Structure formats: structure tokens, C-alpha cells
């Protein structure tokens, strides 16, 4: 799974029938400390993520393995909201405190 930060949302009126009713968010790749690393992509939100939150996304056919995205034309899904990231025994990210 990739670590990312929710940086925006997408509104789309004309879209595939299978995408109706899904919340689409813009996610930016980030490092374990929450610092943005450039690349951005759109993912379906399966957990109620909000702006600025660090999330995990699953890609490819794995993205269809939620009740929300089953059999839909989706290749990226937000499947977790990150609270804490620990690296080498140190907390490098804690939700609400942002990147250090």
C-alpha cells in the first residue's frame, strides 16, 4: 500500500455508470513522516477520509476488494486512515500534528 495525503477532491458529472456515488479524492504520495513527495492521483474513498489526512491506498485489482468498489472500474482505493507511523522505534507521524 502507498502512503499518501489527501490534498483535494474531484467532482465529475459525466462518468462511467460504475463510478456513480463514489467519493473521489486527490491523493499525493508522501513519506512515512507525512511530507509530500510529488506524484498525485485519484482514489476512491472507502473509509471516510478527509482533507489533510494521511491515508493508505491499495492499487490495481486489490482496489475492487471493498464492498463499495466491488465490480466497479476502480484501480485505487483509500482503505485506511493513518493515526501513527513509527520508524526505527520513533514516532515520525501522529495524526493531527502534521509533518515534523
Amino acid at each position, binding site marked *: 500500500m502507498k*502512503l499518501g495525503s489527501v490534498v483535494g477532491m474531484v467532482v465529475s458529472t459525466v462518468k462511467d455508470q460504475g463510478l456513480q456515488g463514489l467519493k473521489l479524492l486527490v491523493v499525493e504520495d508522501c513519506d512515512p513522516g507525512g511530507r509530500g513527495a510529488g506524484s498525485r492521483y485519484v482514489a476512491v474513498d*472507502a473509509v471516510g477520509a478527509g482533507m489533510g489526512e494521511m491515508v493508505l491506498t491499495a492499487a490495481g485489482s486489490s482496489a475492487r476488494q471493498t464492498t463499495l468498489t466491488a465490480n466497479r472500474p476502480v484501480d485505487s*482505493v483509500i482503505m485506511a486512515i493513518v493515526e501513527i507511523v513509527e520508524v526505527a522505534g520513533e514516532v515520525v507521524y501522529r495524526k493531527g500534528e502534521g509533518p515534523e
Partner: protein
Amino acid sequence: MRAAVVAGAVVAARVAAGLEGRKLLVLVPVDAEDGVAGTPFVACDAVGAGPGSRVMWVGGKEAALALDRGDLPVDATCVGILERHGGGR
């Protein structure tokens, strides 16, 4: 499968159905000489790996097959702890 070192762990409060309570590890890809070979990512754990472990992991939809049910939204799972890898030196 590819090799990585476990650098840490992730705690997630809200997760998709079926992922509750699962251990999430921060992995750093490594080459045959244990040099860093990519950016950190997160994987589920199927073998009891912990920080510092050298592991092999499987990606794609197959990642869920290593867990107790195959229909989970995960695309990376640790499936082995490595005693040795690389060129055999």
C-alpha cells in the same frame, strides 16, 4: 516476490472492512546487498515480521491470498522472513 527490510509500523484507526486489527508494516525495498532500492511503502504481515526483519513480500491481488481471506483491499503482504538473500556470499 521481492525483498525488503521492515523499517517500522503503521497504526490506522479507521480501516476498510476485514482489515481491523491487522498488523501494518513500513517496508523499504532492498537490493541483494541490503542497499535501499526504492521508496518506503506499507504491507500487511502474514509471518510475524517485526522492525529490522528482512522479508519477502508479494504484491498485487495475490497479497490478500496470504491472509486468512482473499477478498481484502490490500496490495502488499509480507510472506516470508529471510535468513539470507542475494548472491550467496
